């Protein structure tokens, strides 16, 4: 936390090393979050790219009021939602899309990642987006339940429900495949 404050302080003064350090520190976490939300590596990379570029643009006036990790995770989530919406609009306009092969189905990826995680990724794509978002933002983004609830514009009770149902469904999907 202290390091984050220092990094933000330096970024606000245009310090390039601080900006690079900040990217190094959070890039993998954010990519994992983005990929969990979107399912596609290329899209996830674009989202993380856009979040950091946007942060750099506004860094001089950025004021850290909470956790930087939480802030960046929220930005990733917002941008992921934009993409999901845009996709959905495109799908409505163009008709059914041929499903793309995600790298979670890539055999090479299988080789370096445990089968269990690969199946988890596939299961994640089968649960409703809001549930997936609740789980990932809480467990991977480090956001508190109330922060996720606020982000989703729902009550804390609804959010708890989404989180629990999401986990339950994941469990059911993974058990049924086991």
């Amino acid at each position, binding site marked *: 936390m202290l390091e984050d404050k220092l990094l933000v302080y330096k970024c606000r003064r245009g310090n390039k090393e601080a900006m*690079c350090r900040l990217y190094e520190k959070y890039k993998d976490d954010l990519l994992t979050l983005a990929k969990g939300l979107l399912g596609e590596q290329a899209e996830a990379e674009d989202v993380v790219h856009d979040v950091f570029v946007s942060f750099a643009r506004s860094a*001089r006036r950025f004021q850290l009021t909470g956790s930087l990790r939480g802030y960046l995770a929220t930005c990733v989530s917002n941008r992921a939602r934009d993409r999901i919406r845009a996709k959905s609009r495109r799908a409505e306009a163009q008709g059914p899309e041929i499903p793309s092969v995600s790298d979670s189905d890539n055999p090479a990826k299988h080789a370096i990642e445990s089968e269990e995680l690969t199946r988890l990724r596939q299961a994640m794509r089968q649960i409703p987006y809001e549930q997936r978002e609740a789980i990932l933002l809480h467990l991977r983004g480090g956001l508190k339940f109330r922060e996720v609830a606020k982000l989703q514009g729902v009550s804390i009770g609804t959010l708890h429900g989404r989180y629990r149902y999401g986990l339950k469904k994941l469990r059911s999907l993974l058990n049924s495949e086991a």
Partner: protein
Amino acid sequence: MRPAENIKRLVKKLNDTTSAEMDERVRTDVLGALAESEESSAVTRPKKWSTIMKSRIAKLAAAAVIVIAVLISVNQFGGSATGVVWGEVVQNIEASSGFIVQLKQVYHRETGTMEMNSEIHGSAEYGIRMDSYTDPENRIQMYVNLKEGTLTSIVHSSKTYSRRPLTGDQLAELEKMDPKEGIREMLSVGYRKLGRKTINGIEAEGVEITNPAGADIHSETPVEIDSYVAQLWVAVETGLPVYLESKTSINNGMQKSHTIQDEFQWNVELDASEFEPNIPADYTLMED
């Protein structure tokens, strides 16, 4: 059967790593953006808040911005050598693409007291969203969509909503209500510096604006204002507001209001979706 804890552990084990190509692309673009921001921060001031201020609701919602807008016209504020440069506060606000502020309003009338808590999200690009509660069960949401020129209100307790277009005439009328004018008038009465204090851990400098009588400050209908006192506190480090409090007495003290705006978050990246009204399917549209 896997227990839920195992699923949580598994989710936490998910770990994607960026590729060298991505790192290169991000670093190049991020450092470019940082350099651009350095150049632009010196010479340009983006989107004008006056666009937002055309909106009646925005005027109310962004009262902090309204009061601060005064500072444009009071260059005589100057600034202390190491403190807040008051003349730049408005510019700082204008340069902020998005903000969030907590608003607490207490109204005392003959008929009783009403307290309302709101959270306001403002975006130069998307508009204004205000979520208000008089109690946890009574939630009202208002959205001003600047691109579409619409005002949408949702009253959850009655499961109703309304959506009104802001016509050209309305916008013109709203424009006449440019808050800067009211504030300029208000400031002509007087203000004083309050020095420094720490607010929520932030070192701030304050000014007090007073308007003993006469002018209509915020109201959309003619009212006789007995007195108006507002204190504005601005962070020394950022030059952005951290706290605004105002007290108004109207019609010989028959009505009083006390407003506090704090927990300001400036330069917040707000998502377009936050400004899209989410109206449940079973809500009824109220026609005008």
